[in-house]
């Protein structure tokens, strides 16, 4: 409380007493990385070591393995299930502790986990999921010997065809603590707070209803730890989010579920969601099964009914309506920054500059690669301009209009890994919004069943009381803190290789990127 007393005083001047009365002490969360192993006993691993009956329990494998894959618990008749997620697989063959080769009984055999063939998809290959889990567990990029490809997916397009052209050696030698990864969210000189976040990303909007309260709270706590933001989505503002108010973006979306004057007044950033890149022109859907008592209460809607957010804002059919809409929120909350989230139609550049002219602080363009299972496939894969085109287009158009340095450009929709983020920034964004990666860090397997039944079998995107409590808030928080840490390290590494002191220097540096389809650089292609 003491830390923000000055801030509390200034709030008194701009917010009504009754709103401030609902304000509670803001929680602090440490950024420290702590191990956060998977919450299932046997984490899905890339390789499986099978042990046959020839094993005599000599214990050699346990002795050999420096990673502790093999577990022989005293007092048990058999070996325990090995900790396969620690195994580096065939990379071990060259070492002097390869258990399969050295087993005196030849009782061990290594195979690739057949699950790798079904886990994930082209956008999120199994390797990338496993790597993200590792990051969430350790706070670090997985060691190279694990052989987990985590810089690119396998789509054959989008960010997966873009590569950085790193210099052979950095032009300037910098140490990690000299690198600044922060970005400013308010570039308008309009007297509103100049909010800076420590890393160039914040959490995407997922409503209570689409995800569980545990997921929302974990995201919020990680945002506090890393001095960035999370977003409520449009399913209402959970009371339990209040200790994190200062790091929350609340959404004003077309359904206006749970949006109240008070919730708008609580937060430093309000996001207008006009469309989602994953399903532009389709509005939002929460199918009836996920509309439980808790959800319907938050949204003040009817239990068990599918809830639709209309595809347009019925109050906004034009740019001057948009301005009026922004002015309204500015009036309600004189300290709020406004973000306008739009999808990427062919005239996204015009939409962006129009939003800027109407007074938004953040233009948030959401491309079509993102989206959870709740977004229909037909939409996810077929509508909207690919985000990598949209970023460059909007960036250059804003520059041409002389507005680029007065507005923050945020990109989202398929930013899966730190490399994607860096590429988006090099294309011209100031920062990014992450969504699915956070869910993967919490244990998502990309089964794409977010919308059906009570939702997520892993208890992330669910509203089922039993499923949701499968996850613990402390654990969820730590997983995300760790993920952020790994991303941070990777970003710092990229900046160091370019000899850049700040992530702001990377913005718009398309000259540092190449597209594999248009490149003869064999090294890069390999």
């Amino acid at each position, binding site marked *: 409380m003491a830390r923000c007393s000055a801030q509390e005083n200034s709030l008194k001047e701009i917010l009504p*007493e009754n709103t401030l009365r609902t304000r509670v002490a803001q929680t602090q969360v440490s950024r420290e990385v702590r191990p956060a192993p998977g919450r299932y006993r046997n984490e899905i691993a890339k390789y499986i070591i099978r042990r046959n009956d020839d094993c005599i329990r000599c214990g050699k494998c346990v002795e050999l393995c420096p990673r502790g894959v093999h577990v022989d618990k005293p007092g048990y008749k058999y070996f325990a299930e090995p900790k396969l997620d620690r195994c580096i697989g065939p990379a071990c063959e060259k070492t002097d502790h390869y258990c399969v080769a050295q087993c005196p009984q030849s009782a061990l055999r290594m195979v690739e986990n057949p699950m790798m063939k079904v886990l994930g998809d082209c956008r999120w290959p199994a390797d990338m999921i496993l790597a993200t889990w590792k990051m969430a567990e350790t706070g670090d990029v997985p060691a190279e010997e694990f052989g987990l490809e985590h810089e690119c997916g396998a789509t054959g397009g989008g960010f997966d065809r873009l590569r950085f052209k790193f210099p052979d050696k950095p032009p300037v030698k910098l140490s990690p603590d000299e690198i600044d990864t922060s970005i400013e969210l308010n570039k308008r000189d309009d007297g509103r707070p100049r909010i800076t976040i420590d890393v160039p990303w914040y959490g995407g909007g997922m409503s209570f209803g689409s995800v569980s309260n545990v997921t929302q709270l974990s995201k919020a706590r990680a945002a506090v730890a890393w001095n960035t933001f999370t977003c409520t989505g449009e399913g209402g503002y959970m009371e339990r989010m209040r200790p994190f108010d200062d790091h929350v973006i609340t959404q004003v979306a077309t359904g206006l579920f749970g949006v109240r004057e008070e919730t708008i007044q609580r937060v430093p950033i309000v996001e207008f969601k006009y469309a989602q890149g994953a399903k532009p022109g389709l509005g939002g859907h929460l199918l009836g099964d996920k509309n439980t*008592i808790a959800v319907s209460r938050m949204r003040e809607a009817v239990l068990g009914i599918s809830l639709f957010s209309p595809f347009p804002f019925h109050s906004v059919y034009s740019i001057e309506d948009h301005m009026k809409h922004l002015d309204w929120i500015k009036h*309600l909350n004189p300290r709020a920054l406004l973000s306008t989230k739009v999808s990427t139609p062919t005239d996204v550049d015009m939409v962006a500059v129009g939003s800027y002219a109407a007074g938004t602080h953040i233009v948030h363009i959401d491309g079509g690669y993102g989206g959870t299972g709740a977004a229909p496939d037909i939409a996810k894969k077929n509508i909207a301009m690919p985000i990598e085109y949209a970023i460059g287009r909007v960036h250059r158009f804003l520059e041409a209009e002389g507005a680029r340095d007065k507005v923050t450009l945020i990109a989202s929709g398929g930013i899966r890994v730190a490399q994607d983020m860096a590429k988006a920034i090099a294309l011209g964004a100031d920062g990014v919004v992450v969504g699915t990666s956070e869910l993967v860090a919490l244990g998502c397997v990309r089964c794409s069943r977010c919308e059906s039944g009570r939702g997520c079998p892993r208890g992330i995107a669910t509203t089922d009381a039993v499923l949701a409590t499968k996850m613990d808030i402390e654990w969820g928080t730590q997983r995300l803190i760790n993920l952020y840490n790994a991303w941070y390290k990777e970003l710092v590494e990229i900046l160091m290789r370019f000899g850049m002191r700040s992530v702001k220097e990377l913005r718009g540096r398309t000259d540092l990127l190449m597209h594999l389809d248009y490149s003869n650089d064999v090294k890069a292609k390999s």
Partner: protein
Amino acid sequence: MNRTLIDRVLTSRGRLAERVGHLRDIRKDAEEGGCGVVGFCCSEAVAGRHIYEPSKQMHNRGNGKGGGIAAVGFVPKQLGVSRDVLDNYYMLHIAFLDPGVRSALERKYIEPYFEVASSCELDKVDDWQSVAGLEVCPPDVCRYFVRAKEPVLDAFIKENQLDGLDRSAAEDEFINQNSFKLNQEYYASLGEQQAFVLSHGRNIMILKVVGYAEAIVKYYKIEDLCAHVWIAHQRYPTKGRVWHPGGAHPFAGIDMALVHNGDFANYHSVSEHLKQRNIYPQFLTDTEVSALLFDLLNRTYEYPLEYIIEALAPTTELDFDRLDPDKQKAYRAIQATHIHGSPDGPWFFIIARNIARENKYQLLGITDTAMLRPQVFAFCDGEVQVGLIGSEKQAIDATLQSLSEDDPRVCPVADRYWNARGGSYTDGGSFIFDLKKDAEGKIRIGCTDKFGAAVPLPTASQACDFTAEVDASELDAQVITIDRLFDSKGAVGVFEYVVDHIRQWTYEDIRAICRTISRLGAEKRHTSVAIDALTLLNDRKYSTGSKKRSHIVHLQLTELYRLFRGLPRLGADAATENHYRLVDFDNRDALCEPPEEEAVLVIDASGFPPEGDDCDAAVLKRAFMKGWRRFIVFACRGQRYVGCGLGPDTDDVTIDVYGSSGDYLASGIDGLTITVHGNAQDQLGQIIKRGKLVIHGDVGQTFMYGAKGADVYVLGNAAGRPLINSVGRPKVVINGTSLDFLAESFMAGDPLTGGGFVILNGVRCNDDGKVIPLEEPYPGSNLFSLASGGAIYVRDPEKRLVDQQLNGGAYVALTSRDWDLILPYLEENERLFGITVSDLLTVDSRERHPAEVYRKVVPLASVVAQNLAGTDDTAWADEHLELAAD
């Protein structure tokens, strides 16, 4: 025009386009959103300065990157020509962005073809930067009164085989094609634009600038130029750092000017439709395309206006089914031909025309079928008639105010305000003001809808002389009566006294009474009673005999404002005993804590900007934070967000609003009571949570979108899309009806267990203040679509509602539980508006059982939901969503 001729005209345009090398691909240059549009017509020619105020009112609907005005029906003398020249010659207005090209242009496009009766360069201000609201130097404009030379026209007719065509129609076409060529050479084909035709009709002028529309009036010094019809447009283009006035509205057709608010989704389809008819846009905005489309339907196909409107805004759904079979046949043919050229998406057109053939001027407004843009029509009858169309009521009020200051025969309050229902069988979504000479040669205005039906107006015709002064002796006589009533019977007593006598009184008597009330109100003990009495006279509907209600409303509002403005100003007199304090823009910084708990802050809104840190709503919010709880906001001119931002639990706050209240009023309120004494605008009560909202009039578009609760009472109609996506427990009484899409996706629980509902009475008060049913309680095609909760109680004794209007709803019988639920709201409705429960239950002069009068509409989905209810996670929700009490 027969088919061959139409083909020949279209072919001639095709040859022309080929000859000038027009680029045939369809492009769109500027992305535009909505804009501000206003138009008015007057039976007298009125000066250009009257378009100034309404244009200024619409500033926040444009961004200063494009403005334009048009005028129709001039006074010959002012233009220095004869009546004959004004009526018969085309007024060619050409904008020269580069004045150097003028002589070359004239040599090429004017001298060879035209007989020029008169020409001049429009006067202008020397230093354009001295005119506020201009972004770049406006073009020089030249006006030429021209007719095609006989041999030239003969050759044109011969070349294009237009012998069968009426000679004047051929001349129109010649003018049109000449302008096309000129624009192509000097504007469309160039990187650097040099000149373009602003307008080319008879007795019509269009002017455009890069800036705000009202700057035109100042820059071209047309403050005193008189015309019968004026329209103005504030543009909001979003692309480009450099703008040209060519892209600004209005756009011209022959004898017409069109402004547009909106943005169609199918620009390319409409352009393609035109391209197939050899018509090519040159300015690359959807408004130009709209003007071209109208011109095509009007001049080439020679459709009657009704069919033109049908081609633009087709009649669909239930509305189509309700048309006469003959009409259906005609409309079906029109739709089959023109549906691809029908603009889709949000649009609203205002068009000014000179119909030379019929010797009349015309002003019309057309709204799109889905009614996605706001629109208001108004009419002031009397010796001087005024017809008005605007995107918002505030622009209409500003026009009337401006006109009345010049001519006291014009009352600042219109006789009627109404909305159009787009693509409907009732009014066709369009209203037309025709200005025609009567037998005595005086111009009179008639107003009809798309189908030619006259718009009903109040029958009272006796006008008030607003210039007359109040007779002081009259006052003394009244003071004793009123003073006694104040003490004995309060505001209601005074109100009843006035209503009992008003039919016999003259306007002078009424004014004297109002002045007396206002004067007595200056005394502390009388202030609140006086305010209440004048407010009742404003709000309630009662018989005024042969006197015009609008004029009486104006009289009493004037006195009410006089009373307000006489109250002690904030800060000036700390010693005053009165607990009312007046704040206006000039002394807004004197805001302090209230002198006593019951103190009322009276905000004179007239000087405040419509939004931003200095707007009246922001001052109100600051005052609230300093402890004020009671507010009166008066003389509003469209200021937005009144009542917003005060936060939760504001049950002790009341706000009374007078004047042209603005958009988003009461949005998000949580506990407070807000009363609008008159019509309200758009987007009221967004996400409204709790509290009470009373509107003594109509309310505009998307009323209570995403509402969560509150008790709401509307005396009149709610325009399109009220209560979309409402949840929780809003309880709403609408005494009139709604245009369409009422309570779409309504999700407000079960009304019988605390959920929300709408009572739709479908009635109005006639000129005598009697409650009468509307023709239909709900004319729209969509009622309660996709709703999953709540209910609508409709007063529908004749069972006019049909299943086709529902999409996921069902009619069920009204039970006694329902009646017990809604009765208290109807009783409150009675208290507020004087519409009694007994009035509502009376059908054919007999009071009926409620179940015979009201029908209940419920969502089918809610029936399903009850069977679906899953595991009860209430306890879990309590534990996991609420903040732990620590």
